[in-house]
Protein backbone atom coordinates (compact mmCIF):
# COMPACT_ATOMS: atom_id res chain seq x y z
CA UNK A 1 0.00 0.00 0.00
CA UNK A 2 2.62 2.53 1.08
CA UNK A 3 4.76 1.44 -1.83
CA UNK A 4 1.91 2.17 -4.26
CA UNK A 5 1.15 5.52 -2.66
CA UNK A 6 4.76 6.61 -2.95
CA UNK A 7 4.95 5.36 -6.51
CA UNK A 8 2.04 7.57 -7.57
CA UNK A 9 3.21 10.60 -5.59
CA UNK A 10 6.75 10.35 -6.93
CA UNK A 11 5.45 10.03 -10.45
CA UNK A 12 3.38 13.20 -10.04
CA UNK A 13 6.28 15.06 -8.50
CA UNK A 14 8.54 13.93 -11.31
CA UNK A 15 6.03 15.23 -13.84
CA UNK A 16 6.06 18.51 -11.93
CA UNK A 17 9.85 18.51 -11.78
CA UNK A 18 10.05 18.11 -15.54
CA UNK A 19 7.33 20.61 -16.40
CA UNK A 20 7.79 23.14 -13.57
CA UNK A 21 4.16 24.21 -13.62
CA UNK A 22 3.83 24.79 -9.87
CA UNK A 23 6.94 26.86 -9.37
CA UNK A 24 7.08 28.42 -12.79
CA UNK A 25 3.43 29.35 -13.33
CA UNK A 26 1.16 28.81 -10.35
CA UNK A 27 3.40 30.33 -7.66
CA UNK A 28 3.98 33.58 -9.56
CA UNK A 29 0.25 33.78 -10.21
CA UNK A 30 -0.31 33.40 -6.46
CA UNK A 31 2.02 36.31 -5.79
CA UNK A 32 0.11 38.37 -8.32
CA UNK A 33 -3.10 37.61 -6.45
CA UNK A 34 -1.48 38.95 -3.28
CA UNK A 35 -0.58 42.16 -5.11
CA UNK A 36 -4.08 42.49 -6.50
CA UNK A 37 -5.57 42.17 -3.02
CA UNK A 38 -3.56 45.24 -2.06
CA UNK A 39 -5.26 47.10 -4.93
CA UNK A 40 -8.66 45.94 -3.71
CA UNK A 41 -7.97 47.23 -0.20
CA UNK A 42 -6.47 50.44 -1.51
CA UNK A 43 -3.11 49.44 0.00
CA UNK A 44 -4.52 50.08 3.47
CA UNK A 45 -1.69 48.49 5.43
CA UNK A 46 -3.75 48.03 8.58
CA UNK A 47 -6.52 46.21 6.72
CA UNK A 48 -4.01 44.06 4.86
CA UNK A 49 -2.28 43.13 8.07
CA UNK A 50 -5.57 42.16 9.68
CA UNK A 51 -6.73 40.21 6.66
CA UNK A 52 -3.40 38.62 5.79
CA UNK A 53 -4.37 35.18 7.13
CA UNK A 54 -7.53 35.03 5.06
CA UNK A 55 -5.90 36.44 1.94
CA UNK A 56 -3.18 33.81 2.20
CA UNK A 57 -5.74 31.02 2.16
CA UNK A 58 -7.73 32.56 -0.68
CA UNK A 59 -4.53 32.71 -2.73
CA UNK A 60 -3.81 29.07 -1.82
CA UNK A 61 -7.33 28.15 -2.90
CA UNK A 62 -6.86 29.82 -6.31
CA UNK A 63 -3.44 28.37 -6.92
CA UNK A 64 -4.30 24.98 -5.48
CA UNK A 65 -7.35 24.64 -7.72
CA UNK A 66 -5.10 25.15 -10.71
CA UNK A 67 -2.72 22.51 -9.38
CA UNK A 68 -5.56 20.03 -9.05
CA UNK A 69 -6.72 20.77 -12.58
CA UNK A 70 -3.20 20.18 -13.75
CA UNK A 71 -2.79 16.95 -11.75
CA UNK A 72 -5.84 15.46 -13.44
CA UNK A 73 -5.11 16.89 -16.85
CA UNK A 74 -1.92 14.85 -16.79
CA UNK A 75 -4.06 11.76 -16.31
CA UNK A 76 -6.83 12.49 -18.79
CA UNK A 77 -4.56 13.91 -21.46
CA UNK A 78 -3.44 10.69 -23.13
CA UNK A 79 -5.96 8.29 -21.63
CA UNK A 80 -3.73 7.57 -18.66
CA UNK A 81 -6.68 6.82 -16.41
CA UNK A 82 -7.28 3.74 -18.53
CA UNK A 83 -3.74 2.64 -17.77
CA UNK A 84 -4.47 3.10 -14.06
CA UNK A 85 -7.63 1.05 -14.30
CA UNK A 86 -5.67 -1.70 -16.02
CA UNK A 87 -2.87 -1.60 -13.45
CA UNK A 88 -2.69 -3.49 -10.19
CA UNK A 89 -2.76 -0.29 -8.15
CA UNK A 90 -5.78 -0.19 -5.88
CA UNK A 91 -8.11 2.80 -5.83
CA UNK A 92 -7.37 3.89 -2.21
CA UNK A 93 -3.64 3.92 -2.97
CA UNK A 94 -4.25 6.01 -6.04
CA UNK A 95 -6.32 8.42 -3.98
CA UNK A 96 -3.67 8.77 -1.28
CA UNK A 97 -0.84 8.95 -3.81
CA UNK A 98 -2.50 11.74 -5.77
CA UNK A 99 -3.27 13.53 -2.50
CA UNK A 100 0.34 13.28 -1.38
CA UNK A 101 1.54 14.63 -4.71
CA UNK A 102 -0.86 17.57 -4.50
CA UNK A 103 0.05 18.12 -0.85
CA UNK A 104 3.73 18.56 -1.63
CA UNK A 105 3.00 20.88 -4.55
CA UNK A 106 0.67 23.02 -2.43
CA UNK A 107 3.38 23.19 0.24
CA UNK A 108 5.75 24.51 -2.43
CA UNK A 109 3.16 27.10 -3.38
CA UNK A 110 2.76 28.10 0.27
CA UNK A 111 6.50 28.45 0.65
CA UNK A 112 6.29 31.19 -1.95
CA UNK A 113 3.06 32.79 -0.70
CA UNK A 114 4.12 32.75 2.98
CA UNK A 115 7.11 35.07 2.57
CA UNK A 116 4.89 36.99 0.16
CA UNK A 117 2.36 37.99 2.83
CA UNK A 118 5.09 38.60 5.40
CA UNK A 119 6.83 41.05 3.10
CA UNK A 120 3.90 42.64 1.29
CA UNK A 121 1.40 42.85 4.14
CA UNK A 122 3.84 43.65 6.91
CA UNK A 123 2.93 40.62 8.98
CA UNK A 124 4.65 39.63 12.24
CA UNK A 125 4.63 35.99 13.28
CA UNK A 126 3.95 35.51 16.98
CA UNK A 127 3.40 31.79 17.11
CA UNK A 128 5.44 29.72 14.68
CA UNK A 129 4.23 26.39 15.97
CA UNK A 130 0.58 27.29 15.46
CA UNK A 131 1.37 28.71 12.03
CA UNK A 132 3.03 25.49 10.92
CA UNK A 133 0.32 23.29 12.42
CA UNK A 134 -2.44 25.31 10.76
CA UNK A 135 -0.61 25.27 7.43
CA UNK A 136 -0.17 21.51 7.70
CA UNK A 137 -3.79 20.85 8.62
CA UNK A 138 -5.19 23.20 6.01
CA UNK A 139 -2.98 21.83 3.27
CA UNK A 140 -3.87 18.24 4.16
CA UNK A 141 -7.58 19.05 4.07
CA UNK A 142 -7.18 20.93 0.80
CA UNK A 143 -5.27 18.06 -0.81
CA UNK A 144 -7.69 15.28 0.04
CA UNK A 145 -10.79 17.32 -0.86
CA UNK A 146 -9.11 18.51 -4.02
CA UNK A 147 -8.30 15.01 -5.23
CA UNK A 148 -11.76 13.75 -4.37
CA UNK A 149 -13.45 16.48 -6.41
CA UNK A 150 -10.71 16.51 -9.00
CA UNK A 151 -11.40 12.94 -10.04
CA UNK A 152 -15.13 13.58 -10.01
CA UNK A 153 -14.75 16.49 -12.42
CA UNK A 154 -12.02 14.80 -14.44
CA UNK A 155 -14.37 12.44 -16.21
CA UNK A 156 -16.43 15.29 -17.64
CA UNK A 157 -15.91 17.67 -20.51
CA UNK A 158 -16.66 20.74 -18.39
CA UNK A 159 -14.07 19.94 -15.72
CA UNK A 160 -12.39 23.35 -15.79
CA UNK A 161 -15.57 25.15 -14.76
CA UNK A 162 -17.10 22.39 -12.67
CA UNK A 163 -14.20 21.85 -10.29
CA UNK A 164 -14.27 25.28 -8.58
CA UNK A 165 -18.05 25.11 -8.17
CA UNK A 166 -17.80 21.78 -6.39
CA UNK A 167 -14.64 22.51 -4.46
CA UNK A 168 -15.20 25.93 -2.91
CA UNK A 169 -18.36 25.20 -0.83
CA UNK A 170 -16.78 22.07 0.58
CA UNK A 171 -13.57 23.92 1.42
CA UNK A 172 -15.38 26.86 3.04
CA UNK A 173 -14.79 25.55 6.60
CA UNK A 174 -11.11 25.04 5.79
CA UNK A 175 -10.82 28.62 4.55
CA UNK A 176 -12.58 29.85 7.66
CA UNK A 177 -10.49 27.78 10.05
CA UNK A 178 -7.22 28.49 8.23
CA UNK A 179 -7.82 32.23 8.22
CA UNK A 180 -8.71 32.35 11.92
CA UNK A 181 -5.79 30.16 12.96
CA UNK A 182 -3.34 32.27 10.94
CA UNK A 183 -4.72 35.46 12.43
CA UNK A 184 -4.04 34.09 15.89
CA UNK A 185 -0.55 33.07 14.82
CA UNK A 186 0.02 36.60 13.49
CA UNK A 187 -1.13 38.07 16.78
CA UNK A 188 -3.99 40.09 15.29
CA UNK A 189 -6.66 37.98 16.98
CA UNK A 190 -6.39 36.52 20.43
CA UNK A 191 -8.68 33.58 20.07
CA UNK A 192 -8.50 29.84 19.93
CA UNK A 193 -6.13 29.37 17.00
CA UNK A 194 -5.33 25.84 18.04
CA UNK A 195 -8.94 24.74 17.99
CA UNK A 196 -9.27 26.06 14.46
CA UNK A 197 -6.10 24.24 13.49
CA UNK A 198 -7.37 20.97 14.92
CA UNK A 199 -10.67 21.41 13.10
CA UNK A 200 -8.75 21.31 9.82
CA UNK A 201 -7.12 18.02 10.79
CA UNK A 202 -10.58 16.62 11.53
CA UNK A 203 -11.85 17.76 8.13
CA UNK A 204 -8.82 16.22 6.45
CA UNK A 205 -9.38 12.92 8.26
CA UNK A 206 -13.09 12.78 7.41
CA UNK A 207 -12.53 13.45 3.72
CA UNK A 208 -9.59 11.07 3.57
CA UNK A 209 -11.80 8.32 4.96
CA UNK A 210 -14.61 9.09 2.50
CA UNK A 211 -12.13 9.30 -0.37
CA UNK A 212 -10.54 5.94 0.38
CA UNK A 213 -13.95 4.35 0.61
CA UNK A 214 -15.43 5.82 -2.56
CA UNK A 215 -12.52 6.38 -4.94
CA UNK A 216 -13.14 3.01 -6.55
CA UNK A 217 -16.65 4.10 -7.54
CA UNK A 218 -15.35 7.32 -8.99
CA UNK A 219 -12.61 5.69 -11.00
CA UNK A 220 -14.95 3.37 -12.91
CA UNK A 221 -16.05 5.66 -15.65
CA UNK A 222 -17.78 3.32 -17.99
Amino acid at each position, binding site marked *: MLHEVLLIALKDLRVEWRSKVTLGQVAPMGLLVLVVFAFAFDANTRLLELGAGGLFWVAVLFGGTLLIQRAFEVETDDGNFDAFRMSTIRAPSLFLGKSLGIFIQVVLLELVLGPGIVLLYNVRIDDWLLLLAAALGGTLAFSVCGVLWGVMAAGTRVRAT*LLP*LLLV*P*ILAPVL*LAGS*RAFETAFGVRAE*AGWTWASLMFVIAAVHAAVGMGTFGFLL*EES
Partner: protein
Amino acid sequence: MSPARGNKYMTASPATRVLGVVAVAAALLMALLGLIVSPADVVQGQAVRMLYLHVPSIWIAYGAFVLTAVSSALFLIRSRRREDSGRHHDRLAGAAAEVGVVFAGITLVTGMLWGRVTWGTYWQWDARLTTTVLLFVTYLGYLALRRLPADPMIRGRRSAVMALISIINVPIVHFSVDWWRTLHQKASLSVGRRPEITGEMYWTLLYSTLAVTIVASWLIVHRYRVIRLEELRDEEALNALIASRLREDE
Protein backbone atom coordinates in the same frame (compact mmCIF):
# COMPACT_ATOMS: atom_id res chain seq x y z
CA MET B 1 -47.32 -1.28 -25.44
CA SER B 2 -44.34 -2.33 -23.42
CA PRO B 3 -45.18 -3.53 -19.92
CA ALA B 4 -43.20 -0.62 -18.49
CA ARG B 5 -45.84 1.75 -19.79
CA GLY B 6 -48.38 0.34 -17.45
CA ASN B 7 -45.99 0.94 -14.59
CA LYS B 8 -47.83 2.76 -11.87
CA TYR B 9 -44.73 4.72 -10.93
CA MET B 10 -44.84 6.88 -14.00
CA THR B 11 -48.49 7.75 -14.21
CA ALA B 12 -50.82 9.52 -11.86
CA SER B 13 -52.25 7.22 -9.33
CA PRO B 14 -55.41 8.24 -7.49
CA ALA B 15 -53.28 8.58 -4.39
CA THR B 16 -51.02 11.29 -5.82
CA ARG B 17 -54.01 13.08 -7.28
CA VAL B 18 -55.48 13.22 -3.81
CA LEU B 19 -52.09 14.33 -2.51
CA GLY B 20 -52.07 17.15 -5.07
CA VAL B 21 -55.50 18.39 -4.06
CA VAL B 22 -54.59 18.12 -0.39
CA ALA B 23 -51.36 20.04 -1.06
CA VAL B 24 -53.18 22.94 -2.70
CA ALA B 25 -55.82 23.03 0.04
CA ALA B 26 -53.18 22.81 2.76
CA ALA B 27 -51.23 25.66 1.18
CA LEU B 28 -54.33 27.85 1.01
CA LEU B 29 -55.20 27.14 4.61
CA MET B 30 -51.62 27.84 5.56
CA ALA B 31 -51.81 31.26 3.91
CA LEU B 32 -55.08 31.94 5.72
CA LEU B 33 -53.69 30.96 9.10
CA GLY B 34 -50.29 32.51 8.65
CA LEU B 35 -51.37 35.80 7.11
CA ILE B 36 -54.74 36.51 8.68
CA VAL B 37 -55.78 34.31 11.58
CA SER B 38 -52.57 34.20 13.59
CA PRO B 39 -51.77 37.31 15.65
CA ALA B 40 -48.94 39.74 15.13
CA ASP B 41 -46.00 39.38 17.48
CA VAL B 42 -45.49 41.74 20.40
CA VAL B 43 -41.86 42.33 19.52
CA GLN B 44 -41.71 41.75 15.78
CA GLY B 45 -45.17 42.87 14.74
CA GLN B 46 -46.35 41.67 11.32
CA ALA B 47 -42.84 40.56 10.36
CA VAL B 48 -43.28 37.44 12.41
CA ARG B 49 -45.41 36.05 9.58
CA MET B 50 -42.17 35.30 7.71
CA LEU B 51 -41.58 32.66 10.33
CA TYR B 52 -44.25 30.41 8.84
CA LEU B 53 -42.40 30.28 5.54
CA HIS B 54 -38.82 30.48 6.70
CA VAL B 55 -38.78 27.72 9.29
CA PRO B 56 -40.77 25.09 7.34
CA SER B 57 -38.75 25.68 4.17
CA ILE B 58 -35.42 25.24 5.92
CA TRP B 59 -36.77 22.08 7.49
CA ILE B 60 -37.78 20.81 4.06
CA ALA B 61 -34.43 21.77 2.55
CA TYR B 62 -32.47 19.87 5.18
CA GLY B 63 -34.90 16.98 5.13
CA ALA B 64 -34.65 16.72 1.35
CA PHE B 65 -30.85 16.75 1.48
CA VAL B 66 -30.86 14.01 4.09
CA LEU B 67 -33.23 12.03 1.88
CA THR B 68 -30.82 12.54 -1.02
CA ALA B 69 -27.94 11.26 1.08
CA VAL B 70 -29.83 8.20 2.33
CA SER B 71 -31.02 7.31 -1.18
CA SER B 72 -27.50 7.81 -2.49
CA ALA B 73 -26.06 5.48 0.11
CA LEU B 74 -28.66 2.83 -0.75
CA PHE B 75 -27.88 3.31 -4.43
CA LEU B 76 -24.14 2.85 -3.89
CA ILE B 77 -24.79 -0.33 -1.92
CA ARG B 78 -27.00 -1.79 -4.63
CA SER B 79 -25.37 -0.38 -7.74
CA ARG B 80 -22.97 -3.30 -8.12
CA ARG B 81 -25.79 -5.81 -8.21
CA ARG B 82 -26.59 -7.37 -11.50
CA GLU B 83 -30.36 -7.32 -11.24
CA ASP B 84 -32.23 -4.30 -9.91
CA SER B 85 -29.23 -2.07 -9.48
CA GLY B 86 -31.20 0.40 -7.39
CA ARG B 87 -31.87 3.03 -10.03
CA HIS B 88 -34.98 4.14 -8.16
CA HIS B 89 -32.77 5.25 -5.26
CA ASP B 90 -30.79 7.37 -7.69
CA ARG B 91 -33.96 8.93 -9.06
CA LEU B 92 -35.24 9.72 -5.60
CA ALA B 93 -31.89 11.29 -4.71
CA GLY B 94 -32.06 13.54 -7.76
CA ALA B 95 -35.68 14.56 -7.20
CA ALA B 96 -35.17 15.29 -3.51
CA ALA B 97 -32.02 17.33 -4.14
CA GLU B 98 -33.77 19.53 -6.67
CA VAL B 99 -36.73 20.19 -4.38
CA GLY B 100 -34.25 20.78 -1.57
CA VAL B 101 -32.50 23.44 -3.64
CA VAL B 102 -35.83 25.16 -4.35
CA PHE B 103 -36.66 25.30 -0.66
CA ALA B 104 -33.14 26.32 0.32
CA GLY B 105 -33.59 29.20 -2.11
CA ILE B 106 -36.90 30.12 -0.49
CA THR B 107 -35.21 29.95 2.93
CA LEU B 108 -32.58 32.42 1.75
CA VAL B 109 -35.07 34.85 0.20
CA THR B 110 -37.42 34.83 3.18
CA GLY B 111 -34.48 34.96 5.58
CA MET B 112 -33.04 38.03 3.90
CA LEU B 113 -36.39 39.83 3.76
CA TRP B 114 -37.03 38.98 7.36
CA GLY B 115 -33.54 40.18 8.26
CA ARG B 116 -34.24 43.46 6.52
CA VAL B 117 -37.11 44.30 8.88
CA THR B 118 -35.71 42.83 12.10
CA TRP B 119 -31.95 43.46 11.77
CA GLY B 120 -32.15 46.36 9.36
CA THR B 121 -29.91 44.65 6.81
CA TYR B 122 -30.60 41.97 4.26
CA TRP B 123 -27.62 39.95 5.31
CA GLN B 124 -26.14 39.27 8.69
CA TRP B 125 -23.36 36.72 8.85
CA ASP B 126 -25.74 34.70 10.91
CA ALA B 127 -24.60 31.11 11.35
CA ARG B 128 -27.72 29.52 9.96
CA LEU B 129 -28.05 31.79 6.95
CA THR B 130 -24.37 31.36 6.10
CA THR B 131 -24.61 27.58 6.41
CA THR B 132 -27.71 27.61 4.23
CA VAL B 133 -26.10 29.66 1.49
CA LEU B 134 -23.12 27.30 1.38
CA LEU B 135 -25.47 24.35 1.31
CA PHE B 136 -27.46 25.96 -1.48
CA VAL B 137 -24.34 26.36 -3.61
CA THR B 138 -23.15 22.85 -2.77
CA TYR B 139 -26.37 21.34 -4.06
CA LEU B 140 -26.41 23.59 -7.10
CA GLY B 141 -23.09 21.90 -7.84
CA TYR B 142 -24.68 18.54 -7.21
CA LEU B 143 -27.43 19.30 -9.73
CA ALA B 144 -24.82 20.53 -12.22
CA LEU B 145 -23.00 17.22 -11.82
CA ARG B 146 -26.21 15.29 -12.35
CA ARG B 147 -27.03 17.19 -15.53
CA LEU B 148 -23.81 16.20 -17.26
CA PRO B 149 -24.33 13.60 -19.94
CA ALA B 150 -22.95 10.24 -18.87
CA ASP B 151 -23.89 6.64 -18.57
CA PRO B 152 -26.75 6.54 -16.01
CA MET B 153 -24.97 4.20 -13.63
CA ILE B 154 -21.73 6.17 -13.69
CA ARG B 155 -23.55 9.43 -13.25
CA GLY B 156 -25.53 7.86 -10.44
CA ARG B 157 -22.45 6.66 -8.59
CA ARG B 158 -20.62 9.91 -9.07
CA SER B 159 -23.48 12.02 -7.78
CA ALA B 160 -24.14 9.55 -4.97
CA VAL B 161 -20.60 10.01 -3.72
CA MET B 162 -21.02 13.76 -3.95
CA ALA B 163 -24.29 13.62 -2.02
CA LEU B 164 -22.63 11.66 0.77
CA ILE B 165 -19.69 14.05 1.03
CA SER B 166 -22.05 17.02 1.00
CA ILE B 167 -24.18 15.72 3.84
CA ILE B 168 -21.11 14.84 5.90
CA ASN B 169 -19.95 18.38 5.33
CA VAL B 170 -23.17 19.95 6.67
CA PRO B 171 -22.31 19.56 10.38
CA ILE B 172 -18.72 20.62 9.71
CA VAL B 173 -19.86 23.78 7.96
CA HIS B 174 -22.52 24.48 10.56
CA PHE B 175 -20.16 23.96 13.46
CA SER B 176 -17.38 26.11 12.04
CA VAL B 177 -19.65 28.96 10.95
CA ASP B 178 -21.58 28.91 14.21
CA TRP B 179 -18.38 28.91 16.18
CA TRP B 180 -16.93 31.70 14.07
CA ARG B 181 -19.93 33.93 14.73
CA THR B 182 -20.34 33.19 18.43
CA LEU B 183 -16.64 33.65 19.07
CA HIS B 184 -16.32 36.97 17.39
CA GLN B 185 -19.67 38.70 17.69
CA LYS B 186 -21.07 38.03 21.09
CA ALA B 187 -24.82 38.50 21.54
CA SER B 188 -25.99 38.77 17.99
CA LEU B 189 -28.77 41.30 17.42
CA SER B 190 -31.35 38.72 16.64
CA VAL B 191 -31.15 36.86 19.93
CA GLY B 192 -32.94 39.45 22.02
CA ARG B 193 -35.56 40.02 19.37
CA ARG B 194 -36.57 36.46 18.65
CA PRO B 195 -40.32 36.21 19.04
CA GLU B 196 -41.71 34.06 21.79
CA ILE B 197 -43.48 31.33 19.94
CA THR B 198 -46.49 30.28 21.92
CA GLY B 199 -50.19 29.62 21.54
CA GLU B 200 -51.69 30.34 18.15
CA MET B 201 -48.32 31.17 16.64
CA TYR B 202 -46.96 27.84 17.77
CA TRP B 203 -49.85 25.93 16.22
CA THR B 204 -49.68 27.94 13.04
CA LEU B 205 -45.98 27.18 12.71
CA LEU B 206 -46.60 23.49 13.33
CA TYR B 207 -49.39 23.43 10.78
CA SER B 208 -47.29 25.35 8.21
CA THR B 209 -44.54 22.80 8.57
CA LEU B 210 -47.03 20.05 7.85
CA ALA B 211 -48.50 21.90 4.85
CA VAL B 212 -45.09 22.66 3.33
CA THR B 213 -44.09 19.05 3.85
CA ILE B 214 -47.14 17.91 1.89
CA VAL B 215 -46.39 20.33 -0.94
CA ALA B 216 -42.75 19.24 -1.02
CA SER B 217 -43.72 15.55 -1.04
CA TRP B 218 -45.97 16.17 -3.99
CA LEU B 219 -43.14 17.94 -5.80
CA ILE B 220 -40.66 15.15 -5.07
CA VAL B 221 -43.09 12.46 -6.22
CA HIS B 222 -43.69 14.24 -9.50
CA ARG B 223 -40.08 15.15 -10.08
CA TYR B 224 -39.25 11.50 -9.51
CA ARG B 225 -41.74 10.53 -12.19
CA VAL B 226 -40.36 13.03 -14.64
CA ILE B 227 -36.88 11.58 -14.11
CA ARG B 228 -38.34 8.14 -14.70
CA LEU B 229 -40.00 9.38 -17.89
CA GLU B 230 -36.72 10.86 -19.07
CA GLU B 231 -35.01 7.54 -18.49
CA LEU B 232 -37.81 5.75 -20.28
CA ARG B 233 -37.40 8.05 -23.24
CA ASP B 234 -33.67 7.36 -23.33
CA GLU B 235 -34.26 3.63 -23.03
CA GLU B 236 -36.75 3.68 -25.85
CA ALA B 237 -34.35 5.61 -28.06
CA LEU B 238 -31.66 3.10 -27.21
CA ASN B 239 -33.87 0.11 -27.97
CA ALA B 240 -34.75 1.66 -31.31
CA LEU B 241 -31.06 2.09 -32.03
CA ILE B 242 -30.29 -1.50 -31.10
CA ALA B 243 -33.14 -2.70 -33.29
CA SER B 244 -31.89 -0.66 -36.21
CA ARG B 245 -28.33 -1.96 -35.69
CA LEU B 246 -29.67 -5.50 -35.77
CA ARG B 247 -31.53 -4.78 -39.01
CA GLU B 248 -28.35 -3.42 -40.63
CA ASP B 249 -27.06 -6.98 -40.99
CA GLU B 250 -30.08 -8.78 -42.26
